[in-house]
């Protein structure tokens, strides 16, 4: 059975290590914050100028001055810090953020990512995505394995305009955990009840399958 969005977020949350500074993109990545394993303390960075994103506020706590990069009202944890956008991207570009999780339209065998622009559709802009993928030490993509037409999003080459090249390290989809290796995609885990065959069929790029592929533990 393929994972829902929360399932993908739960699986990604297992990648978090104690002491990590993490930037979570909009969409599924944001949900990761709900599943941080017990005993693991991470600090969430928001590129609009906040280190230490807290929960959503109560109605009384809402502050127009305190939002995340998705422009939602948030709170700040005790020990948080506010700063300007240049400092925020100094953290990102300087490699101080340990893990970036973001969504994508497509990922290629070589770790290229397309996530910001669909020709013919209104272009809203790349926001901070190009900065994040160009500099993060570790990038995990959270996305569906196939698009609405059932076409694979794990491709030999991306067909859409790129956000960055050779940068994605791991992909967590509704079907599988896939790593980017020198030789292409490598299947690491299957979603519960999903067969290797199903994953292969849903993957356009070369998929390396070595030995038994364990099921995710969600």
């Amino acid at each position: 059975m393929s994972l829902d969005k929360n399932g993908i977020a739960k699986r990604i949350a297992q990648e978090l290590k104690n002491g990590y500074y993490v930037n979570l993109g909009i969409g599924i990545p944001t949900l990761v914050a709900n599943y941080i394993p017990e005993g693991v303390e991470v600090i969430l960075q928001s590129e609009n100028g906040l280190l230490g994103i807290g929960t959503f506020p109560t109605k009384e706590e809402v502050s127009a001055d305190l939002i995340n990069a998705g422009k939602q009202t948030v709170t700040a944890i005790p020990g948080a810090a506010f700063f300007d956008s240049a400092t925020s991207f100094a953290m990102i570009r300087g490699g101080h953020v340990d893990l970036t999780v973001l969504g994508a339209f497509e990922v290629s065998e070589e770790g290229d990512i397309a996530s910001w622009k669909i020709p013919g559709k209104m272009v809203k802009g790349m926001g901070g995505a190009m900065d994040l993928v160009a500099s993060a030490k570790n990038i995990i993509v959270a996305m569906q394995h196939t698009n609405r037409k059932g076409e694979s999003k794990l491709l030999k080459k991306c067909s859409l305009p790129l956000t960055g090249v050779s940068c994605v390290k791991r992909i967590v989809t509704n079907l599988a955990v896939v790593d980017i290796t020198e030789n292409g995609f490598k299947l690491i885990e299957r979603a519960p009840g999903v067969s290797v065959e199903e994953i292969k069929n849903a993957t356009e790029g070369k998929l390396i399958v070595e030995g038994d592929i364990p099921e995710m533990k969600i």
Partner: protein
Amino acid sequence: MDKIVKNAQEAIAEIKSNSTIMLGGFGLCGIPENSINALSKSDISGLICISNNAGVDDFGLGLLLKKHQIRKMISSYVGENSEFERQLLSGELEVDLIPQGTLAERIRAGGAGIPAFYVPAGYGTEVAEGKEIREFNGKMHLLEYGLTADFAIVKAKYGDAYGNLIYNETANNFNNMMAMAGKITIAEVEELVPVGELNPNHIHTPGIFVQKIFQGKDYEKRIEFITTRD
């Protein structure tokens, strides 16, 4: 050293059509509301606006878009604005999209007298088209240029007559760097306090970067997405 002007109207009086202006804020957070409102009531047009976003249809820069006062936007993300989309598709409006971190750093560089610098963001993408590419430490980088503007308009929580500014929470965002990069920088503040009242250790924007300051009023501080846990 008193840089206080009476209000937004007086602050923007020098701005001419076809100027390049920077406007602080991220989404609707920390935008110079009073100044934008005053601009929208003026007949200034042909503006090149450098701002991370473009407001919403009836607030922020959306007000200037609606009145066709903006010729070009330089931003990282321009969603949430249907008038923007219409003008862009019809060719009335130009837009230059720049990765957010590069935009922030280009503005800081402009204010800091650094004409150009290298960053990895955008390498291998259409952002790199026409740009100089150079390898450092085994990684490809693009040459990016410092940005300045005829006017920068920023908004802070606290300010004084010397132009010292303190921002609140994430409303700092682009304001601090833009203050550095304006040939003339206008600051509007929620609370204009007597000189000496701000703790000099806590000042985000030292007054040297600010030429005009005024006590703002009637802040709406609209929120794009109110999300609560209750």
